[in-house]
């Protein structure tokens, strides 16, 4: 069930929030209810996904319990490998087989397993807890709160990728504590903003980008077309993901829980390092803390730094999808980060506008790899951007306007969360909310809403 679907807004969410507050005085009951609601939410996609989510969570918790009771460390390593293996099995086995085919020239049978939705996100959260146990920085949790940490439905499908210690302590807070209505009110506003970003911006940009990338599977598009496709997709993926993150944070607030921020106006970044501090923040910090720094980071010499950066960003790409386009996208960013660091160390500082232009162009170009279904299509798009398909015609208004509007909003808007925190209750705000919410619900009822891009990861 999508956040921006009628069944979620009109049935599931009111029901889930209503019962949660009816049980608010009883911590155990309200937490079990949130787990149950989260499993219903998850099972709604495909009931077959449930055993894996429950199994991975329960097994991880049991292994941690064993390690604690016996004072062993090795079960934690086993649990990390097991979780990675599950992710590898469902997400990468066919990709691995295709690589083997290319290397050996032999044909291997494909598993063709269905990718359980959200597996990349919750597996990373399980692994972060296991690593923190090994580091001695994670406490022991009961199965109820641990299960809720993983399954909590607002973040289950596409993040934010949370740490146990930033959400589990919040479960104990009294939902009825001071500020109840402010939290719910701001949560509703944030949710609605996310809805608008998804339906009225991201999905409209998809209408521009999709046919261009589809055409590029066959031919080299003209420069103007390739440019429109690349720009429209770079904006689409931003608004699509920021919309999901805003809706997730908004729902969290409705339950009295503060989820971490995932975006901080990334298209205002003036360097690639700056970009990664603003884009998918919870993934960036996960990669930093659990891959980049353990590999040596930037303090162990140039060689280690280059190695750690490329491995981290290569894995970042692979995390997004099992395909060479994603790997190259990640490695491209890795190389970009190295060049950025080199420039910052040896070069003279660029004027901010030039730094912004270079950074944004680089990011937009690399998103072509991210969107293209295969390297051939990406090649066609890059060839089009190089002018191989001719200059093409000027953009029609139907392309120009959405790209201009979305681009402007992406550049000028403050982080949505901050904006939602600034809003004050007033009648105009309430009336505006109701009108916009009704329009959104009626619009989304016209047909099957488009899924979020990050749900495929």
């Amino acid at each position, binding site marked *: 069930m999508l956040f921006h679907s*009628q*069944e979620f807004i*009109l049935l599931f969410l009111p029901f889930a929030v209503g019962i949660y507050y009816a049980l608010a005085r009883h911590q155990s009951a309200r937490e079990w209810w949130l787990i149950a609601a989260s499993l219903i939410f998850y099972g709604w996609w495909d009931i077959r996904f449930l055993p894996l989510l429950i199994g991975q969570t329960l097994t991880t918790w049991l292994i941690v319990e064993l390690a604690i009771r016996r004072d062993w460390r090795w079960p934690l390593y086993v649990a990390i490998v097991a979780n990675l293996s599950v992710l590898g099995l469902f997400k990468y086995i066919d990709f691995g087989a295709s690589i083997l085919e290319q290397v050996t020239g032999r044909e291997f049978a494909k598993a063709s397993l269905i990718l359980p939705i959200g597996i990349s996100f919750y597996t990373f959260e399980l692994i972060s807890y296991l690593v923190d146990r090994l580091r001695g920085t994670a406490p022991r949790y009961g199965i109820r709160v641990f299960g809720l940490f993983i399954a909590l439905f607002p973040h289950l499908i596409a993040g934010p990728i949370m740490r146990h210690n930033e959400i589990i302590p919040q479960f104990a807070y009294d939902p009825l504590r001071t500020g109840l*209505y*402010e939290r*719910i*009110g701001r949560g*509703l506003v944030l949710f609605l903003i996310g809805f608008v970003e998804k339906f009225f911006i991201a999905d409209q940009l998809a209408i521009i980008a999709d046919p261009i990338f589809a055409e590029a599977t066959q031919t080299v598009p003209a420069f103007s077309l390739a440019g429109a496709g690349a720009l429209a997709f770079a904006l689409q993926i931003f608004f699509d993901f920021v919309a999901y993150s805003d809706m997730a944070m908004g729902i969290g607030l409705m339950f009295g829980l503060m989820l971490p921020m995932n975006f901080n106006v990334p298209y205002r970044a003036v360097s690639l390092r700056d970009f990664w501090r603003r884009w998918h923040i919870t993934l960036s910090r996960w990669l930093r803390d659990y891959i980049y720094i353990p590999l040596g980071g930037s303090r162990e010499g140039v060689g280690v730094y280059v190695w750690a950066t490329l491995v981290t960003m290569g894995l970042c790409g692979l995390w997004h999808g099992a395909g060479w386009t994603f790997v190259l996208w990640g490695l491209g960013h890795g190389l970009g980060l190295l060049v950025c660091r080199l420039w910052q160390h040896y070069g003279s500082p660029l004027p901010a506008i030039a730094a912004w232009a270079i950074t944004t162009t680089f990011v937009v170009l690399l998103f072509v790899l991210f969107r293209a279904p295969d390297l051939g299509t990406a090649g066609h798009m890059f060839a089009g951007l190089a002018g191989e398909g001719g200059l093409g015609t000027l953009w029609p208004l139907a392309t120009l306007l959405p790209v201009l509007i979305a681009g402007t909003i992406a550049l000028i808007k403050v982080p949505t969360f901050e904006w939602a925190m600034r809003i004050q*209750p*007033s*009648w105009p*705000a*309430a*009336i505006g*909310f*109701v009108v916009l*919410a*009704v*329009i959104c*619900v*009626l*619009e*989304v*009822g*016209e*047909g099957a809403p488009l899924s979020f891009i990050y749900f495929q990861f």
Partner: protein
Amino acid sequence: MRGWRHFVWAIVCGFAGVIVLLSVFIVSMNPYGNLPRILFSEHVIDDTNQRFQYPALIRSQRYDSIVIGASDSRLLHPRALERVFGGRFANLAMNAGLAYEQYRLASLFIREVKDRRTLLVGLDHVWCDEDAGEKRITFRGFPEWMYDDDWRNDLRYMLNAKSVEISGRRFGQALGLRKARFPDGYEVFTPAESAYDPVKVRGKLWDKGGPNSADPVVPAYAANAEERARWQYPALPWLDEIATRFVGRVVFVYVPAHIAAQPPPGSKKAARREECKARIGAIARRHAAPLIDFDIHSEITANDANWWDRLHFRLPIAERVVDDIERALATGKDDPKGDWRYLEGPRTGAVSSTAE
């Protein structure tokens, strides 16, 4: 406003109130005629998306006879057809109607209307397309939920701006502020005859394919029996099913298309089309239903002055086609002037019925 508490209750109650009011309005107005009738005993069509409105016309029980087809069948006037076949006709041909959509519509008619009389199937290339099995619906959307027998599952698809708009139109009708449009599905969608411009039309007819696109291909493509047997027509089982289940008179009419829209004689496409017609002929024969073919080179299809574009003939031709259907059924023979071929059906002139 006094604080967050009021704000939250205002937006929750305001939102819930508006949604409930809109839901009640939609259910009361029954914009698609698919819900149990509360306020209106009859339904009249008031939308341009035929896929959403035709089920309501069927469920109104006002018509015992229908035309199905694509836009090339839409100009067959229900009153003229009533003169030929009797009964009460609605023309439910859809713009760009694909075979699957027509099949679903006919199936609904068969299930919903007990005293049905005539089904006129306006055939064209969509029934012979190789990809008819995959390409089932158009970008216009097709509301499957409206074509089943359970109105309860319709509710989850009806809370949207389109339903509100059509409900508003119905409300306008109830107040007498608005006249019903297309009460029997028939609409003259072509421009006014006075606006006919032969030069412009000629450009439309011939520009795409070049001046010789209707010329025969020499040598003609010769497909042997084995090759013909391999050709697939995924939509034809649907046609067979319709004819099998329809208790009443089924008439298959291959409607005219301008010669520039027909496969060039002797081409592989033409051979495929002929094979398709032969298989439709077999279906017609099994159900003792007539099959009349206007999709041939004739004075109707070769004369540019008869057409608006390659698929849409002018109003006088629509009248002529209905008259020709009547003559074809009466004689049970090909047209001596060559306007139609009487491919299947009773040769005595009596139109037979099929049985379930």
